[in-house]
């Protein structure tokens, strides 16, 4: 038996996530300080956990409606109206999913025919291009650049457009760059999406963690609700990664199509997570603000330290990631990460794990305690100083 014959060709050719390779190395160094974690360091607020425990005590262990508990969808509808702007019908325009990752997958599978093209910005979350490939689409990356603090660049999207493009995929604030999109640029992009008749998939999972200016959803712009799938969830803002619950809001015909896949593949999100999500929406906003304030202060500290060290770093306007430029060290991003881990026991993630446009950058999460951030940045300073000495020595020779 040849196992190769039993793996689908498009899976065989799918590259492994660079972040997984790096994880394998870091996991053997438990003493290392990790700035490589893509999730909140806060435990889910107790009131949210307690709501889930209470639901369990009440014997809520069943399936739910495929679309999710109606009571949750009603709360999602209220939350979207107040936070993002658009009003969605809880019955027909909202689908509760197992995290935003599931929503991305089923949205792409619902929309794409083989060969259809998807424009997305890069560096970006690791799953975007593979998810397009898995849906037999063609992923077309559009660079966001350090010169523009990795913010939305509508002109770059316009230039990258080609016949066959069907979807515009956005993620602002962005993992890994912290880039955001202001209203003016979103308006220009919305005009472009309408002209080219594109569907927008807008993953706004970090929306609450916006530190500068207001978060604007493209779905809130005139004429965009009908062609936008707004994706959001509880993992980041509410620190609920392990609950695996997210949602998609969009036109009923798209939600219906996604439902077809969701009902066969997933059935429904876990009921205990849905119960926790209701509590998060009803009573969790103060906790979100408290955590956001913490990230904000840590961001200011980390960015200042990186720039002091000589690792040029723009101010991430959202998310909990810094994305410094490491080219001054003379190392590429992968060498930098491996040597930093080996020599100073600090883990950061190579920027190219988030696409080729992450070249010369690394992602450092500031979702960790001050104690660790102070120590990690001190060690990075020593590392960069050592590299400077090495480089000076080499130049002298």
């Amino acid at each position: 038996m040849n196992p190769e014959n039993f793996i689908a060709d498009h899976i065989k050719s799918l590259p492994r996530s660079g972040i997984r390779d790096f994880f394998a190395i870091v996991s053997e160094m438990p003493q290392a300080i990790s700035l490589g974690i893509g999730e909140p360091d806060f435990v889910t607020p107790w009131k949210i956990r307690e709501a889930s425990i209470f639901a369990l005590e009440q014997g809520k262990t069943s399936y739910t409606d495929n679309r999710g508990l109606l009571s949750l969808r009603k709360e999602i509808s209220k939350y979207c109206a107040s936070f993002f702007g658009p009003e969605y019908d809880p019955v027909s325009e909202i689908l509760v999913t197992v995290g935003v990752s599931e929503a991305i997958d089923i949205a792409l599978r619902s929309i794409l025919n083989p060969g259809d093209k998807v424009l997305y910005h890069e560096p970006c979350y690791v799953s975007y291009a593979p998810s397009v490939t898995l849906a037999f689409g063609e992923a077309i990356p559009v660079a966001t650049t350090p010169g523009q603090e990795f913010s939305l660049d509508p002109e770059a999207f316009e230039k990258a457009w080609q016949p066959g493009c069907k979807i515009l995929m956005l993620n602002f604030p962005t993992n890994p760059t912290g880039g955001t999109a202001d209203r003016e640029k979103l308006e220009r992009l919305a005009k472009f999406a309408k002209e080219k008749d594109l569907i927008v998939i807008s993953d706004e999972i970090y929306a609450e963690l916006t530190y500068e200016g207001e978060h604007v959803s493209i779905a809130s712009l005139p004429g965009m609700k009908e062609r936008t799938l707004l994706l959001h969830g509880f993992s980041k803002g509410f620190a609920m990664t392990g609950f695996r619950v997210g949602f998609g809001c969009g036109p009923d015909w798209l939600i219906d199509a996604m439902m077809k896949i969701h009902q066969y593949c997933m059935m429904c999100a876990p009921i205990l997570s849905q119960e926790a999500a209701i509590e998060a929406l009803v009573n969790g906003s103060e906790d979100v603000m408290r955590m956001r304030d913490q990230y904000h202060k840590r961001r200011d500290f980390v960015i200042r330290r990186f720039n002091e060290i000589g690792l040029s770093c723009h101010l991430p306007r959202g998310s909990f990631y810094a994305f410094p430029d490491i080219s001054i060290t003379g190392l590429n991003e992968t060498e930098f990460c491996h040597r930093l881990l080996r020599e100073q026991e600090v883990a950061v993630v190579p920027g190219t794990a988030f696409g080729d446009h992450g070249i010369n950058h690394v992602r450092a999460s500031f979702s960790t305690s001050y104690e660790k951030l102070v120590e990690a940045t001190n060690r990075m300073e020593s590392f960069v100083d050592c590299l400077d000495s090495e480089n000076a020595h080499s130049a002298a020779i």
Partner: protein
Amino acid sequence: MSDLLSILQETADPRPERLAKILGCTAEDVESELEELRKNKTLLGWMPLLNPTHHDLEQVRAVIEVKISPEREGGFDRMAMRISKFEEVESCYLMSGGYDLLVFVTGKNLRSVASFISERLATIDGVLSTATHFLLRPYKDHGHIFEEESENQEKPSVSP
């Protein structure tokens, strides 16, 4: 709340040099803000948070509901201050409800606490009655939970 106060409440290491690094200012700036906070009595002092269940630190703690007679001049204040000055008294609050003062007392053992209450506190002129409750086991104090949840050992150290 100032950034300094906010960070002081989160950190276990209040050295000015370290706080200065976090805040992006000089240690002198931190010292001067701390001095200002002391002067205006926002910052009253430092207190380590000790684990009362540690065998070296084991003490008997009691909470006492005290009824007192208010006075024409100053109400409950003079009596409350008088009681607060005993070193056995850890905290003292004026309360609404069925009694007047809530007094937290610590002592080396049951006998020392009992004798403080019966011989010193209850005998003060103006103290009408006391009701004492001994604290059996702490679960949370000053925001600190004594038996923290175990850290998730399987949480990945790098994730997307």
